[in-house]
């Protein structure tokens, strides 16, 4: 059995770990609220842009002459997987879930004979280098970002679109974790290039039947809005990721705090037993010593 001193040291060490995990949980909870607010504040723009895209979609037919972002490159060979993760660890399975989703997609694409390239956005996505060391297209530095701003999403988008125009890839998928609640974050992947136009059901009716005038014209507006649409999707993903990360960390740290509590309880029992055993032994020694003198 461990000595009393060793047990005491161990209990103290677990106690200080518990203090840290508890503090991290509370920080994550505060940051989660902020991240959720940011995600909600970003919703109106995304909604309106989608509505505009939908009503444009009904006016424009996709053809060879359409913008490449819409019509595609005409090929389906090279796939770019954009893996958006967080900058920090200790967030439960958050990052590994995203990376796993991306790897699964990469495997199924490679099995279908496609070429896969990986675009890393976020430090914790770098583990994917181990599996695809020669297929990393770019590792986007995000370490300086404290709260995601649209400009950050724009920087990624501009880079990706430049690569697309240069013919580096044909299809792009974006991987991130969708925030459902502090307990549930679902890793998802979806195609962002070529842009899938939203289905258009009721947009013309809501205009009261009046003909909409386009300045300059439908095609130019669409060409102008397509990159913006991708940027807003990436921005939305980064915001969801930020919220998911904090939610996941909160849950993970809550579990860790609880585990530490259990551990302290167990070690304390062990410590007390050892202490009592020592006292009993001492008493027995004293008593038998006294008996011997009689």
């Amino acid at each position, binding site marked *: 059995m461990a000595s009393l001193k060793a047990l005491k040291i161990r209990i103290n060490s677990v106690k200080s770990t518990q203090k840290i995990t508890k503090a991290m949980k509370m920080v994550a909870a505060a940051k989660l609220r902020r991240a959720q607010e*940011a995600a909600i*504040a*970003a919703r*109106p*723009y*995304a909604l*309106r*842009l989608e509505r*505009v895209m939908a*009503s*444009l979609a009904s006016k424009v037919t996709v053809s060879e002459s359409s913008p490449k972002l819409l019509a595609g490159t005409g090929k389906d060979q090279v796939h770019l997987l954009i893996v958006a993760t967080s900058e920090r660890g200790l967030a439960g399975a958050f990052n590994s879930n995203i990376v796993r989703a991306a790897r699964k997609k990469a495997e199924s694409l490679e099995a279908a004979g496609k070429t896969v390239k990986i675009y890393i956005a976020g430090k914790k996505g770098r583990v994917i280098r181990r599996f695809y060391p020669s297929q990393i297209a770019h590792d986007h530095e995000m370490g300086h970002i404290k709260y995601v*701003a*649209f400009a950050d*999403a*724009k920087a990624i988008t501009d880079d990706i679109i430049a690569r697309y125009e240069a013919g580096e890839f044909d299809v792009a998928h974006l991987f991130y974790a969708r925030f459902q609640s502090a307990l549930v974050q679902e890793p998802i992947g979806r195609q962002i290039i070529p842009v899938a136009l939203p289905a258009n059901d009721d947009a013309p009716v*809501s*205009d*009261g039947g*009046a*003909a*909409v*005038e*386009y*300045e*300059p014209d439908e095609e*130019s*507006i669409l060409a*102008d*809005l397509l990159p*913006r649409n991708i*940027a*807003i999707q990436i*921005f939305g993903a980064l915001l969801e990721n930020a919220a998911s990360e904090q939610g996941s960390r909160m849950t993970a740290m809550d579990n860790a705090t609880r585990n530490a509590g259990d551990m302290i309880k167990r070690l304390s029992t062990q410590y007390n037993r050892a202490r009592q055993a020592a006292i009993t032994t001492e008493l027995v020694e004293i008593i038998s010593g006294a008996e011997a003198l009689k």
Partner: protein
Amino acid sequence: MLHFELVTPEKLIRSEEVYMVVVPGTEGDFGVLEGHAPVMSTIRDGAIEVYATQGAVPEHIIVSGGFAEVNASGLTVLAEQAG
């Protein structure tokens, strides 16, 4: 009154009733009053002029990377940056 909304990706900046808004469209400035015909237009980087009431001194809001939509419910300006 005209319902005017100014939205950036980060948040909804304005949502208010105003008299008139002058929008710097790519093909020229245009003023939007209540009951304007539906229009979709890209905006060049510059200032939107917001007239709270008729004859009031306009308020200028600098926007970049913008897009304007006028429909039955009013004017919506989507801008990458504003303010």
